[in-house]
């Protein structure tokens, strides 16, 4: 199902398909007409996506069919081998971790996985991790440090799960611990916000040397819906809240929260998942390449400084 602002694009695509099948059936050459419409389609798609409102970006970031973390694990990495469990509470399906190869190098990967369909979404708890998921991340950070393997994380979560067991098992404690553990990695760490970067639950695996973000992903302190409910006392004000929160990739680049925007294929990652995966692979490889010369101490210092300096304020006279 297309997003509402994609309707004209979808209609035009349908017309092109119609024309093509008509031409085939009737054995007529409509190449010129098709080319004309395809041209129009490209322009329309480009214009639509160049002028997305922040709220529309939120919808793209959550769009069905958008590649999920597992799609990137499979497409960006070779020999991905999943490692289960946190050694304490269980195995949280919302967080997928494991070993893999990126080019010639072994890496430890940790990813937040939403579902690709309803069934998987339920299994993955819509990408909302329990404390067990963060504990899994923490023990994989330990593993990476021990074997001096770089760490790659994929962020895509509405937020950490708000539930009774999650609170009893110290959701806040494990998120804090995961932030701290990741900040202490003696190896290169790269994070990619691929869809939704939902608050502390996202940051818990986002304390990297370089933080990349897909063009239509969002990263925010609170969801637009919750922000609207609190600040406007009206969940219907989510579009205004999205605007006010400045949560798009260009916004975050400007604020210094992320280091680089990874371009999506025209029409968004959900239109061309393979294209999105290829772009992420290239960006991640070059991000690690850029960190290759740094030793343990330099990596620690760079990461600490990167997060230490974030914030905006003025010094009093």
């Amino acid at each position: 199902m297309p997003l509402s602002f994609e309707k004209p694009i979808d209609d035009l695509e349908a017309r092109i398909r119609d024309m093509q099948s008509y031409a085939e059936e009737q054995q007529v050459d409509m190449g010129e007409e098709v080319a004309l419409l395809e041209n129009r389609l490209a322009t329309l798609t480009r214009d639509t996506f160049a002028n997305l409102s922040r709220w529309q970006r939120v919808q793209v970031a959550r769009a069905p069919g958008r590649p999920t973390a597992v799609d990137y694990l499979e497409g960006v990495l070779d020999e991905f081998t999943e490692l289960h469990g946190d050694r304490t509470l269980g195995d949280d399906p919302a967080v997928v971790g494991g070993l893999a190869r990126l080019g010639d190098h072994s890496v430890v990967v940790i990813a937040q996985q939403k579902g690709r369909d309803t069934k998987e979404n339920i299994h993955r708890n819509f990408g909302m991790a329990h404390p067990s998921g963060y504990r899994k991340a923490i023990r994989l950070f330990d593993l990476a440090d021990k074997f001096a393997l770089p760490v790659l994380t994929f962020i895509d979560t509405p937020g950490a799960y708000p539930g009774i067991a999650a609170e009893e098992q110290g959701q806040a404690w494990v998120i804090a611990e995961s932030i701290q553990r990741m900040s202490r990695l003696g190896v290169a760490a790269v994070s990619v916000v691929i869809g939704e970067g939902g608050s502390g639950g996202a940051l818990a695996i986002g304390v990297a040397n370089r933080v990349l973000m897909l063009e239509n992903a969002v990263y925010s302190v609170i969801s637009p819906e919750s922000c609207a409910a609190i600040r406007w006392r009206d969940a219907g004000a989510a579009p205004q809240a999205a605007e006010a929160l400045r949560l798009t990739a260009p916004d975050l680049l400007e604020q210094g929260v992320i280091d680089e925007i990874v371009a999506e294929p025209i029409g968004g990652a959900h239109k061309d998942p393979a294209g999105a995966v290829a772009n992420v692979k290239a960006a991640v490889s070059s991000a690690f390449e850029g960190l290759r010369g740094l030793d343990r101490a330099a990596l620690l210092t760079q990461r600490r400084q990167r997060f230490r300096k974030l914030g905006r304020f003025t010094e009093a006279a």
Partner: protein
Amino acid sequence: MALERWFRRQRPTRGDEGSPAGLWLKCPSCHAQIYRKDLVANLYLCPECDHHERMPVDARVAMLTDDGTFERWSGHILPVDSLEFVDTEPYAERLAAVQKKAERPDAIVTGAGEMLGERVAVAVMDFSFLGGSMGSVVGEELARAAERAAEEERAYVVVSASGGARMQEGALSLMQMAKTTVALEALTERRLPCITVLSDPTTGGVTASFATLGDLVVGEPGALICFAGPRVIQQTIKQDLPEGFQRSEFLLRKGMLDDVIPRRELKARLATYVRLLRGAPVDRERAAERVKVEKPELSRAAVL
């Protein structure tokens, strides 16, 4: 100190102490009518039932530090509305109004002092200032205080009271969670203790960062301490929450806190923690002071 003078000048001529509504309060726990002066004299504890009322920052600092030893560090940086955030009212206007009322630029006070003779740095969050929310200034003050504490060989005591990150500052408020976390490394490297006291309420991004990263983490009695607030959870799971859920005593049972400490005993206990963690010999004379603050003679008995 020019800033403080500025705030003094901005102060409205009519304070709220004089208003009749401020004279008597109703205890939310036992419902007793409490004479306001008694509550203040009693460390903001209900004289009838010991309910721990939220404590203003200045009173908290005075309670935790030895007389005349506190030297303020915070207050030299000011928040900016870099997103030009407007909801039903512009953030800049909300901020200006609360700054004027609080007479400080943001929701925190930090400084150096002595705690029964122990050299400490303290940071106290102000819930009455935009819900104690953590934006760039609160994060920066916490970070600077941690780093200065390390430089000056002081233990760091943080009293949290916060609704979480300040959403009007967008993703940069979220990033304060990482900033405050990495700033604590300065203390870790010098083996200086960081002790966090979670007071009512401590929620969201504050709980999920520095507040639970103390070497010791303690709660005040009855304090709400959580990541997601009870209302959010109720809306999500559509079930009743267990009795005492997310309160200090509940979290103590769940293994999340080192202890729950009544306010009267807090200073003595924190000083003991600092002394024991630093492996300092016992000062017998001072040890006598390490007892709880006695309940004062109250000017008027509470009435039902």
